[in-house]
């Protein structure tokens, strides 16, 4: 627990100095939502129906920026290696990094909701439940995303490699997230939202436990 707290403290310090990249990711996500609305045109029925998909598409695209850059500071002067040699627990380092990425993506998702409502005239009958789905969905993106970001951080084309590896793995998470968001926003006459939420929760549990176990092998020589 001491190691995890130390790693979380480190992430907090690093995130507090990285406001500009956060703003860039927010602008990127907002631009993606805006472009989708232009692509569909002024058909509000169509926009409302597609809003959940567009929201998650914007989040997925933004996540590649956030995740790819999350190991930049760790690699600049081999700070990650320095921590592991202290010795710091690789598992603690992973979970702190994944939590930081999760917080960023979840906040981004929540920040995009008002824009989605404005651009797509979307219904928001249960905003807190929607925020919960966003939290679960982004957790499913950040856990494997952090692992793959660590794997690809030294590759010259990491911005290309990361989505190639990550996207196929997170398809089930995205489907569950889009489905649960749709049911929340467009109505849920069959009461299916909880089964999708449960599925999302199961994917998260698998990703968070497996990736935590694998991280040490990925970052060690």
């Amino acid at each position, binding site marked *: 627990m001491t190691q995890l707290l130390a790693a979380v403290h480190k992430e907090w310090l690093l995130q507090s*100095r990285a406001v500009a990249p956060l703003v860039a990711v927010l602008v990127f996500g907002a631009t993606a939502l805006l472009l989708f609305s232009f692509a569909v045109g002024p058909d509000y029925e169509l926009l409302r129906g597609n809003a959940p998909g567009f929201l998650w598409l914007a989040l997925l695209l933004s996540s590649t920026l956030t995740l790819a850059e999350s190991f930049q500071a760790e690699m600049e002067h081999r700070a990650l290696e320095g921590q592991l040699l202290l010795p710091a627990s690789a598992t603690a380092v992973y979970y702190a990094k994944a939590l930081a990425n999760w917080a960023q993506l979840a906040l981004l998702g929540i920040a995009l909701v008002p824009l989605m409502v404005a651009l797509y005239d979307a219904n928001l009958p249960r905003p807190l439940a929607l925020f919960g789905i966003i939290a679960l969905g982004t957790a499913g993106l950040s856990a494997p995303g952090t692992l793959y970001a660590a794997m690809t951080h030294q590759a010259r084309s990491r911005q290309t490699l990361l989505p190639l590896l990550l996207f196929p793995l997170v398809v089930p998470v995205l489907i569950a997230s889009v489905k649960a968001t749709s049911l929340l926003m467009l109505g849920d006459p069959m009461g299916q939202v909880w089964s999708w939420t449960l599925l999302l929760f199961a994917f998260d549990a698998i990703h968070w436990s497996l990736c935590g176990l694998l991280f040490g092998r990925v970052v060690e020589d």
Partner: protein
Amino acid sequence: MGDTDALDVRGLCRRYGRRWALVDVSFRLAPGRSLMVAGRNGSGKSTLLRIVATAIRPDRGTVSVLGHDVRQDREAVRGRTALLSHASYLYEALTALENLKIAARFLGREATRAALVPLLAEVELAERADDAVSTFSAGMRKRLALARTLLQDGGLVLLDEPYGELDPPGFRLVDRLFATFKAKGAAVLMATHLLDRGAALCDEGLVLEGGRLRWQGPARDLPERGGLDPATLPEGTA
């Protein structure tokens, strides 16, 4: 058996791709003793130190630190070694104090300003405690990296080119810290090109050439045998 040795290296080999960086290197270092590692650029000095610190794995041979194998018992080795590497292991965006705080927290040490500023004072950086590392010169980063090394209570201290990027007062600082490590009872393995300086500090010396152990003996003999360039060591001195 070398179980009580601070360091016991036997038949150590390591390669990068097809090129062998270390070939069949063997030596021992007793607790509390110091060893200078000399050799030209690319002779395998840093690779040797990085293997001992468990940053990279050996391909063949065994390395034991205070009785712990670097392959089997990484965590135990890491808890007993402190490495000053070529890389500073620092975060550019954070201040000197914050960088030390991170290391102190991972080590379970007191991470307060009161506990860490004296460490910065020891490397003459106390006045820059709250400045971001990105504003530091290369020499100041090296000093901060030295302060970080001081945080660790290693039975084996590994110094890879500790004088690099430092000014003359910095050289004296390294000499002083070297004495501090020795006074704490730690064994010290130092890779350096400054043979006279290293010979004055260390008990033993060895020269690597092309990844092979070329010469080993008392450190005071090294400058005489090799002049200031270990590559000019006479044939047959191994």
